[in-house]
């Protein structure tokens, strides 16, 4: 199979999940667009050097996460003030629906407000449903560190939310 064909199938298979992952990191749709492009340009450029030591998925996710972290370190990020919350509720919705949506919103806010190393572990483990070994490969840390971070992230969420949402 030619590299171009492999790339086409990777774009097809991972385009959506990578873009969602990036959005959860940066929480801004326009920046997500840009970073997603950058990730796949890198994937394309490095296709011939990929050594198959890990799966394509792990490799692409690692590129995506590093791209996000580079962005957080960049000048552009430090100059931006985020206000990314988009409310979907409206005043005509029944009260109970509003309450349920608010509960969700608070849990999301608590997750997204975690320091990046705990936020990413929650996203990768609970959202992307990756195995500890895969996360360990992506983040280049050992599995025991992944376990510790998951546990610490859960405790931080409990501390923020008083445990109500984590039961």
């Amino acid at each position, binding site marked *: 199979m030619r590299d171009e064909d492999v790339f086409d199938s990777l*774009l097809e298979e991972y*385009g*959506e999940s*990578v*873009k*969602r992952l990036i*959005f*959860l990191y940066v929480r801004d*749709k326009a920046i*997500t*667009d840009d970073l*997603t*492009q950058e990730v*796949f*340009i890198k994937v*394309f*450029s490095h296709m011939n050097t990929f050594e198959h030591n890990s799966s394509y998925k792990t490799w692409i996710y690692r590129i995506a996460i590093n791209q996000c972290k580079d962005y957080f370190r960049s000048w552009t990020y430090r100059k931006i003030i*985020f*206000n*990314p*919350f988009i*409310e*979907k*509720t409206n*005043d005509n919705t029944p*009260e109970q629906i*509003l*309450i349920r*949506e*608010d*509960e*969700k*919103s*608070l*849990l*999301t*806010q*608590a*997750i*997204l*407000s*975690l*320091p990046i190393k705990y936020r990413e572990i*929650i*996203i990768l483990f*609970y*959202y992307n*449903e990756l195995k500890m070994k895969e996360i360990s490969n992506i983040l280049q840390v050992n599995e025991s560190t992944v376990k510790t971070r998951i546990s610490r992230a*859960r405790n931080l969420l409990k*501390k*923020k*939310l*008083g*445990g*109500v*949402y*984590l039961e």
Partner: protein
Amino acid sequence: MSNRIRDNLEDFIGEEKLFTDKDKRNIYSRINSIKEPSSKNTYVKRLLHAGLLVAALCAFFLTIYVTTDQKNLNEANIPLEQINDNNVRTIHTYLEKEFTGPGQELSDILDQGLYSVELERYLEENYDDLVADLEQMINRNYVLSFLRAAHTEGYQLQPKDINIQQIEDTKNDVYNYEVEVEYSKNNEANTATVTGVINLNENGKISLIRRMDGLELFEGLN
């Protein structure tokens, strides 16, 4: 827990597909320009960059214009004793409590954990007159959320500006609020804005808080 987090984050991202044909086209177009760089491409790219720069500048000035305009529409921050509207007084008192401290008394109580009799008594004394269903408010984390986080991280909160605006044309008493909160630690202070919507019942008590956006403050307290 796993499903709950997944569902919440899915809700946050939205159901819509994020990765579209436009993304694919953009990626392939970039790849083609890498493979076949040409002067025409460079010219188009420069033109595109110039266009983006102009668009960004327009967006920036528009944001400043809209923000300034909106601020002009807001009421000035009035001291509590001068507020005549009982509903606004109730909301103001609640917001002041939520974003002030924690003082020594509350800190000592929080040190005893979340299930102490002292905390129960504190909540009743401070919130019973303000909210319709205290237990529900506690369960939904609309009481002491930020003060607990501030206490854990050693911060002090102080509301610098509280704006409360009634939403017109609603059947019930519904108010938008915006609080500029100062959070300080070791002589270093920052501010964050918390916004939301509060409903009051026919007795003038807070029955519902929704659309709360406290992410900026949550992040600041980390």
